[in-house]
């Protein structure tokens, strides 16, 4: 008798376990279309959530049959593919230009050609940018929503402490070097810092290469040639070498990536660094930067064919959603990402909502639509712009005269990873042989491209 009641108890426990597991996957019963959309990276401040909640309410009021569920999301190499395979990606999310081509070739993005055409702004996109989300037949797989150009970010406070004029930031790489030296001598902080980890070292080295008139890759789809060992890359690395080993003006931390360099900059430990022009939003929202010390200018361009590296991201729909969810997803993308670029009322509403929750409005970007529409859209919200525009004049005055250059298309992230090592070697080994490092990286990159 006793053993039977024990068995019963155990069976009940087992059933309970299974039942509670099953409860995890309970579906919707409200009759609305549930749409899981990407919001912002984990770690954003409470005000960002308030702003999103307000926008969610506005959208749901206009579209009562759609239930928006915000999901924290950050595009990260390590988790993206696993989330995609495991089905835990939001239905609407964003991916950088560098990955959009491969994703659409792998069939991992939903075709939205018909929807974009129906919305009527297919021809308004900047064609260079639209090309990032089209396959060979011209089908469209996403909405370019934001683009950036590389910019030089600097700390005005450290400039002042070093006796430099924060309203006249450096305009050549030599001036950057001088300013870095002055800052580190006067304050003991890093005058100039450089990302070097998790593929960001390669990203920044590519940007510096292009700014020195070089290119790390040539050719078109299917026949890329690695040109990593070029005078531009050599110049970019020699610049780093001189700052690190001759001037000692790069501080003492040489293992930085996008997140940690932002953190150090926001904490006032870095005088200057290069990163996307749109990073101000994240610096304030996620890293608590004091806006008063922020300065932004264009990166110096030197050499005949010099340009500014640009990139950006696109809003896309998961390939696994149903027809109803797809329709809802397109409505959301149009409302959340696109209308504010096209329509005065939407732009003002969006800006007002963000301003009310203390979010940055007016961060400099590159236009994904034509330049005219972009400048017009800034007029609409001129009164609401709350980023310190007068501390960004260097960027606004110079950016439209710089030639934007896209990121290398073949095996982008893998080659960035190879270049991380090169940057780290130059920063941590005084006798690093730049030519040998680049020759090796070039051969390794070509092997990747030939696969």
């Amino acid at each position, binding site marked *: 008798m006793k053993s039977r009641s024990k068995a019963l108890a155990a069976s009940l426990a087992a059933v309970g376990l299974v039942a509670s597991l099953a409860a995890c996957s309970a579906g919707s019963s409200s009759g609305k279309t549930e749409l899981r959309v990407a919001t912002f990276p984990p770690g954003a401040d409470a005000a960002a959530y308030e702003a999103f909640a307000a926008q969610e309410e506005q959208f749901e009021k206009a579209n009562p049959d759609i239930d928006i569920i915000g999901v924290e999301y950050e595009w990260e190499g390590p988790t993206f593919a696993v989330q995609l395979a495991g089905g835990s990606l939001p239905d609407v999310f964003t991916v950088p230009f560098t990955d959009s081509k491969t994703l659409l070739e792998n069939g991992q993005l939903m075709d939205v050609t018909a929807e974009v055409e129906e919305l009527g702004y297919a021809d308004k996109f900047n064609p260079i940018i639209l090309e990032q989300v089209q396959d060979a037949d011209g089908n469209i797989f996403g909405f370019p929503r934001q683009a950036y150009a590389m910019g030089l970010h600097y700390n005005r406070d450290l400039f002042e402490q070093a006796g430099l004029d924060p309203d006249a930031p450096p305009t050549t790489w030599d001036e950057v070097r001088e300013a870095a030296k002055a800052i580190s001598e006067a304050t003991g902080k890093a005058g100039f810092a450089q990302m070097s980890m998790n593929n960001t070292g390669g990203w920044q080295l590519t940007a510096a290469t292009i700014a020195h008139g070089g290119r790390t890759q040539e050719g078109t789809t299917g026949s890329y040639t690695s040109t990593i060992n070029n005078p531009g890359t050599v110049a970019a690395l020699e610049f780093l070498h001189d700052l690190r080993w001759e001037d000692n003006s790069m501080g003492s931390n040489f293992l930085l990536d996008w997140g940690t360099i932002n953190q150090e900059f926001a904490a006032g430990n870095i005088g200057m660094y290069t990163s996307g022009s749109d990073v101000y939003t994240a610096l304030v929202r996620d890293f608590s930067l004091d806006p008063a010390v922020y300065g932004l200018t264009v990166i110096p361009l030197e050499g005949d064919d010099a340009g500014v590296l640009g990139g950006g991201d696109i809003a896309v729909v998961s390939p696994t959603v149903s027809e109803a969810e797809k329709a809802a997803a397109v409505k959301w993308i149009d409302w959340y990402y696109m209308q504010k670029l096209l329509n005065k009322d939407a732009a003002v509403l969006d800006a007002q909502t963000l301003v009310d929750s203390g979010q940055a409005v007016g961060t400099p970007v590159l236009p994904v639509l034509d330049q005219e529409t972009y400048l017009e859209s800034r007029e609409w919200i001129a009164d609401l712009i709350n980023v310190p525009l007068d501390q960004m004049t260097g960027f606004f005055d110079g950016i439209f005269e710089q030639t934007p250059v896209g990121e290398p298309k073949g095996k982008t992230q893998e080659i960035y*990873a190879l270049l991380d090592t090169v940057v780290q070697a130059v920063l941590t080994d005084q006798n690093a042989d730049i030519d040998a490092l680049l020759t090796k990286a070039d051969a390794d990159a070509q092997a990747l491209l030939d696969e």
Partner: protein
Amino acid sequence: MTRTPKRTPATWLRGGGLSTLVFALPMVLVFAVFSWSPIVQSFVMSLQKTNLITSEWVGLDNFVRVLSDPLLGTAVVNTLYFAALALVFGFPLPILLAVLMSEVRRGKGVYSALAYLPVIIPPVVAVLLWKFFYDASPTGVFNSVLGWAGIPPQPWLQAQATAMPSLVLEATWAAAGGSIIIYLAALLSVPPELYDAAEVDGASIWHKIWHVTLPQLRGVIFIMLILQVLATAQVFLEPFLFTGGGPNNATVTVLLLIYRYAFQNSLGGNYGEATALSVLLAIVLALLSFVYFKLTDKWSAS
């Protein structure tokens, strides 16, 4: 003569076998789903090219590619370097501390608590704390302390030569507490008569440790040694969080390389290569353990 009753399904049932099975079932299921099935799946995956949605069989291609990766040699050497440093500096330390602590007459509890404290701190938190301590500027925590002693600031994680020893230092600190507790427990089982006899023979404290304590701890030391070798061969947390494998691949370990294969590139995730290297590592470690236990069996018997 005792008669062993013949075991039949009926006696099994009467003896409460069914309820045992039912009680064990949740555990068996959990193990099957979360532990055994991934092991089998990774063997399968090592023979495939997969993006986790569609897969194709590629035979031993993944193994060939892994073995021809120039970074594999670097990773193996780095891992051996880490293991060797941990063995030379990290392994004797807990034994020494445990023996010393067992000799202390008062406040033993306080010392064990202090020694065990680092184990209580979550490993990731510990690494991030140490990353802060390792700040390479002259005002960094460790560099300030060194400065008081007149030692110039060290680059710690920021130079290729000092990065790996810095990782070992933290790993030793983090792991010592657990080992000390185990050795302390083992020391309790050493019969006090042996010490008394040694004392009568006029043995010094070092003679007692060398001729009584250590031989008595032999079994535990053998086990702890192979456990440490297995753990250091799979070191991941420290290089991943401290340096990401840098500077200039100075701290890329085998497990970090596996991670990179699988996750570094969002789109080209080489899960096949990652599992192939995992399988290779598992085989090497299994062989090592087998040989080790054969050898120590012999030593223990002699």
